[in-house]
């Protein structure tokens, strides 16, 4: 398979301000994306050193199909997570995969720590290390505006940057990618901050000739036609992911008020239909995606007397409406936009921020943390206290806020309330309460994401199947998604990129691979991740599953802890790990 391909890795050392291009023919069988990144990370990670140690690497990778096939839009980042201390893996779209392609690098490795704040300007010339001292402390949007004027490559470039949260080491700080997408969840922003790295601008004009035009053009056209005519266009372009809000709510699957409920009386008002009708102003796409699922809403805010208004265009999705909406009891779109704006500018992961605020609210109500420590009184459906808490997490005035900056799991370990700190694998939950497969999938998934193995979907599609079948489906899905993530295909297009299509697409650009080889690749990456995770401290018997999951009815009814534990045992048995329970 893919013998002569050479993966060009740009290796950047921030400490020495040195760079090197490394040509790795041996990485070709990993194709690209998560395969290449997982392999490089497993070679470079320092398991005995702190996640924020300067030596810890950050790996970015795109794939051979990036941008030149429809909906192949993602770049993967792999790193040791500052939030969990374990496996860090995150995906972002917009222009980064395109810009990396045009710069001629399939992977970028960042190591070391700059002596003072820097940003990286990366093109086909390599890297320039640029002074970012004037940018340090600035919000995400201001940083973007300044870099737009400073750097070349307008139209084809990508600008990724952190906000104050990353600089201050908040463990769930994200990295913003081209304003509307993010490397979210596991704290890549904190890692950037720990390296004194404010931003990275990537661009290039590299020529790449098409070897077999007739073959490639035909496959491209077939996939393009399917992308613009099948129902993913309707679902993701139409209302977007926010379409899920009302659907989940009707079925008791929408986590509400820190999962004290699984349906929300104001869901209608904050559902995809209402957002579209009342505040949607445009839709956007990542480079190379004809679907365009990014929904931009208008947030209008009066900032002073005498009709002084400001307006902002903010991106909304199901996960944001859940985490900063239903989970916090927010009854209007305007309130959700206020919170989205705050997390965007500070550079915080939206899901983690919302789920953490849910715990803070309940913990304060129950008296395990005090209004005095917080400085404000958090209450569901009230934005002002939440906005203040978010600011203080980034600029912590006391020990409580220092703990909150570590995420909900760490805070609950310190203060109590673990039974309603809604995390799985130390990672705040996504916006679904569908049943056992959803909880199990996030608990065992490599990055503790609903996207690892789509447990929420297994719960619904295999509703009447046995626990064994559900567990097998999770494992199979996680392995296949490893393959799709080697190709950095947006998972929204997973129905289009079935195995035959993947093989035809790769073949048309000179990469010949069989279905069996792909299956083995998915399995090998699964194993690389599991081996590395274990070195970084992941253990099945350390998994903590908050009691709240078993108290609040789910989409598939009330759940039972015993049955869940049995499924967890089954999972370990099926992947060949001896149960330690």
């Amino acid at each position, binding site marked *: 398979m893919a013998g002569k391909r050479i993966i060009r890795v740009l290796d950047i050392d921030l400490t020495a301000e040195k760079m090197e291009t490394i040509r790795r023919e041996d990485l070709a069988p990993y194709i690209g994306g998560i395969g290449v990144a997982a392999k490089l990370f497993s070679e470079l990670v320092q398991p005995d050193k702190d996640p924020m140690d300067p030596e810890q690497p950050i790996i970015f990778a795109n794939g051979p199909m990036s*941008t*030149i096939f*429809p909906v192949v839009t993602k770049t993967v980042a792999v790193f040791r997570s500052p939030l969990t201390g374990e496996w860090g893996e995150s995906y972002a779209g*917009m222009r980064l995969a*395109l810009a990396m*392609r*045009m710069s001629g690098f399939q992977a970028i490795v960042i190591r070391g720590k700059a002596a003072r704040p820097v940003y990286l300007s990366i093109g086909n010339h390599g890297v320039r290390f640029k002074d970012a001292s004037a940018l340090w402390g600035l919000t995400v*949007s201001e940083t*973007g*505006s300044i870099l*737009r004027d400073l750097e070349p490559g*307008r*139209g*084809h470039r990508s600008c990724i940057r952190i906000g104050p949260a990353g600089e201050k080491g908040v463990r769930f700080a994200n990295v913003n990618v*081209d*304003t*509307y997408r993010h490397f979210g969840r596991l704290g890549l922003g904190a890692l950037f901050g720990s390296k004194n790295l404010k931003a990275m601008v990537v661009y290039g*004009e*590299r*020529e*790449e*000739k*098409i070897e077999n*035009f007739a073959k*490639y*053009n035909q496959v*491209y056209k077939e996939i*393009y036609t399917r992308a*613009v005519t099948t129902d993913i*266009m309707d679902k993701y372009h139409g209302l977007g992911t926010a379409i899920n809000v009302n659907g989940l709510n009707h079925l008791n699957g929408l986590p509400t008020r820190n999962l004290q409920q699984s349906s929300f009386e104001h869901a209608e008002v904050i559902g995809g239909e209402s957002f579209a009708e009342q505040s949607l102003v*445009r*839709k*956007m*796409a*990542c*480079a*190379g*995606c*004809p*679907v*365009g699922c*990014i929904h931009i809403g208008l947030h209008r805010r009066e900032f002073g007397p005498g009709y002084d208004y400001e307006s*902002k*265009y903010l991106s909304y999705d199901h996960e944001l409406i859940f985490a900063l909406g239903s989970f916090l009891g927010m009854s209007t779109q305007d309130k959700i936009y206020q919170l989205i704006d705050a997390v965007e500018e500070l550079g915080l992961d939206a899901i983690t921020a919302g789920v953490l605020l849910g715990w803070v609210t309940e913990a304060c109500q129950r008296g395990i943390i005090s209004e005095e420590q917080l400085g404000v009184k958090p209450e569901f459906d009230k934005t002002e206290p939440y906005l203040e808490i978010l600011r203080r997490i980034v600029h912590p005035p006391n020990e409580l806020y220092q703990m909150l900056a570590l995420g909900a799991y760490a805070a609950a370990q310190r203060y109590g309330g673990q039974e309603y700190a809604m995390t799985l694998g130390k990672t705040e939950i996504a916006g679904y309460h569908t049943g056992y497969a959803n909880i199990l999938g996030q608990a065992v998934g490599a990055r503790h994401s609903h996207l690892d193995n789509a447990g929420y979907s297994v719960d619904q599609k295999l509703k009447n199947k046995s626990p064994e079948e559900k567990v097998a489906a999770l494992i199979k899905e996680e392995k296949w998604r490893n393959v799709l993530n080697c190709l950095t295909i947006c998972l929204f297009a997973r129905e289009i990129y079935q195995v035959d299509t993947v093989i035809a697409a790769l073949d048309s650009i000179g990469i010949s691979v069989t279905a069996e080889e792909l299956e083995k690749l998915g399995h090998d990456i699964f194993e690389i991740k599991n081996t590395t995770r274990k070195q970084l401290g992941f253990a099945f018997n350390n998994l903590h599953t908050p009691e709240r999951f078993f108290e609040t009815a789910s989409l598939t009814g009330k759940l039972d802890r015993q049955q869940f534990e049995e499924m967890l045992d089954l999972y370990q048995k099926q992947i060949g790990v001896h149960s330690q329970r």
Partner: protein
Amino acid sequence: MAKILHAKYMAKCIGCYSCMLACARVIRHSFSLSKSAIQIRTAGGLQSRFLADICRGCLDPACARACHCGALLPRSGGGVKFIPDKCMGCQDCVDACVVKTIRFDHESNKPVICIQCGTCTRFCPHQVITMEEREDGR
């Protein structure tokens, strides 16, 4: 009359770049967006609107007037025909273009000329760019 490329509906543009990919792929057999004669960009970052830098299909094209080697010839209905074999790579057309949308490809030593073929419009998922006749005939 022959049709020319229009970008009248840019408010509907999602920035997917399918048009650029189509031009680079079909006309120049390249994966590189820098080889596309149509360029989509933002007015000032992704919170602003999208703009299309396209050949406006002039009836009396300044680029053709500036070309002294016979590589660019006026096309009936607007725009130009490009004869690459005759092009010497002087770049006078790049300077002459009124709307400054001709890019120069240093590798082939030739300009990236829009030939008004309409391929980009066939890959626009939202009918933002279209091939239409000149309304006023000018």
